[in-house]
């Protein structure tokens, strides 16, 4: 019983670290531009497939493929940004359709390029067991990318809160015109948020490729999960994302362990609704009353 719980919490924590990485990419863009990038899951997936291609064609270790994936995903993200920038009216809603369209295009490009077969790394090390104190089991890849995830999330947090650029990013989202009056070029700052989001997508995509299997239809579900966490967190809050991701991860493994694994999805949704009804603006959201 105790061992089961321990393992469930541990697995959930590891999953949460990865969720956080995926979600933060989405949350960042959402926080800065009030735009939900529905193609974010596909960006993650794209990184995974680039890693796969590098491994298949050049025998590159997935870790070594990260820079290549970064270039591909980064450029794609900038393209998405460029297209969003062309929207003139009602950006919040119209960007949904635009990025949804982009997601469809990406899914199909992936399908046509790499076929519908399932893919995963063949580097055995990633799947080897990393056992802590004879009771906590995980794969090397999970531990590695949990560390990477926490570092990246922490780094992003620091960047947002303690650098001029990070602050400018938040300022643009808070009041675009006022930010311009402070000498901020909103377009540059927003593009930067896309690039950072691409970095997060890349690393989480490679993590996915090494710890799990990928196939073209996967992206949509990733976006939804990331979105759930983002909303759970409260608008663009980094600690909220981390906390939300861990709650989700642990909640899922606990359900799988102590109830029915098939109710895992339900748990996620119920936690989500519970938190929203208790705190309508998310875990770390803040509400401003009209004057």
């Amino acid at each position, binding site marked *: 019983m105790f061992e089961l719980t321990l*393992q*469930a919490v541990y697995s959930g924590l590891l999953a949460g670290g990865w969720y956080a990485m995926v979600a933060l990419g989405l949350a960042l863009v959402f926080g800065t531009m009030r735009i939900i990038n529905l193609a974010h899951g596909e960006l993650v997936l794209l990184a995974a497939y680039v890693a796969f291609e590098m491994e298949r064609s050049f025998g590159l270790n997935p870790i070594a493929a990260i820079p290549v994936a970064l270039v591909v995903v980064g450029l794609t993200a900038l393209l998405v940004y460029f297209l969003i920038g062309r929207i003139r009216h009602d950006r919040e809603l119209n960007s949904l359709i635009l990025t949804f369209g982009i997601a469809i295009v990406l899914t199909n490009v992936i*399908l046509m390029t790499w076929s*519908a077969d399932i893919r995963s790394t063949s580097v055995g090390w990633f799947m080897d067991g990393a056992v802590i104190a004879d009771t906590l089991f*995980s*794969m090397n890849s999970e531990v590695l990318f949990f560390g990477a995830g926490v570092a990246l999330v922490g780094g992003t947090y620091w960047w947002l809160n303690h650098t001029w650029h990070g602050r400018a990013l938040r300022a643009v989202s808070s009041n675009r015109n006022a930010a311009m009056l402070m000498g901020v070029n909103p377009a540059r700052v927003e593009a930067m948020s896309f690039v950072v989001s691409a970095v997060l997508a890349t690393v989480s995509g490679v993590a996915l490729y090494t710890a*799990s*299997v990928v196939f073209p239809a996967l992206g949509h579900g990733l976006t939804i999960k990331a979105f759930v966490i983002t909303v759970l967190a409260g608008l663009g809050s980094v600690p909220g994302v981390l906390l939300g991701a861990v709650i989700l991860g642990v909640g899922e*493994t606990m359900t799988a362990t102590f109830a029915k*694994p098939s109710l895992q999805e339900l748990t996620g949704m119920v936690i989500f609704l519970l938190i929203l009804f208790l705190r309508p603006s998310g875990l770390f959201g803040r509400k401003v009353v009209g004057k």
Partner: protein
Amino acid sequence: ETFTLGSQVPLTGNLARVGTGMHEGISVAIAMANKELGGKHEFKVSTIDDESNPAKAVAAVEKLASEGVVALTGGYGSNIIGPASEAAAKSDLVYITSGGVAPELTHRDLDTFFRINNSEGYGKAMLGLLKDMGVKKVSVIYSNKEATDAMAKYVEEGLKEAGVEVTTHEFDASTTDFKSIMNKVKLRDRSDAIAMIGYENDYVGILRAASVLKPEAKAIVGVWSLATSQMNTEFHDLVQNVYGTSLLPYPVKFSGDEAVEFSATYKEMFGKEPDYLGQFGYVQTRLLIDAVVAAADKGEVSGKTVAQELRSLKADTLIGDVAFDENGDNPNFSHRMGQHQGDRVEIVWPEKAATAKMNFPAVPW
């Protein structure tokens, strides 16, 4: 005379993989038949992606009907096949498939519906193997999709009847991390064997979780999509000693001429070893072609005549004997079990078809 067969399969979305696999078999069947018929009759296939959506599948069938196809082959998922085959019946077209195993499908009084496999066939093989192993306790891990759910119920009941203790773990199709389940299997169930009922990505996840947690099972058994050449090459270490339904060993040692030719044609057309999806797609289409030819030779090709031909046929095929009952089901269908052994997939059950002895007890780690 030229006949066009219609094919409605998923080529995009979640089921894109299986749909594509089946369609490859269909193409091989057409190519081989045309060669054999030597110009007397010519067959073509017209394919529409149903996007795993019943409404689109129905529309696809109707479109194919309006194009004048003589019969339909394809379909994946009982949910899709149900409405699609009803639409086919309305247009008086035979619908033959291997993609839907739900029992209800053959209890709808549709004269034009046929399928060459059913869940019992898979279930029987899995049960037979487990019983022969003499295991006392089995953990069944299954996806909550319609086909897997039905299969799991079947296996659970069968095992219980045989006095085997069973625990079940139902998971959601979107699950990727199976460590929680595997941990329960390891610490709570302590079972002799693990039965997996899902799809490729699920198997990989479950096996990885098992390799990390190393429960003390003696055998790991799965169903479709597992004892395949592709799994053997792509997840070589992970699947060692794992069992799954398989009609043929790998590398294929085909006995009959047809089998040899099938394998050669498949490799030529798609550059890879045929897998079970291709085999089923091939067999269903081949039977259909033969029935159409027979009906044509008797003078009239219609849903009724083709169905008649199919119902009266008794064939020895790549997947064993096929003969349809009045519901269009193939009661003869019974599967075999293969095991990944090194670079090979050996048939280990039933004994009379075995190509090697099973490694037991043995697990991948």
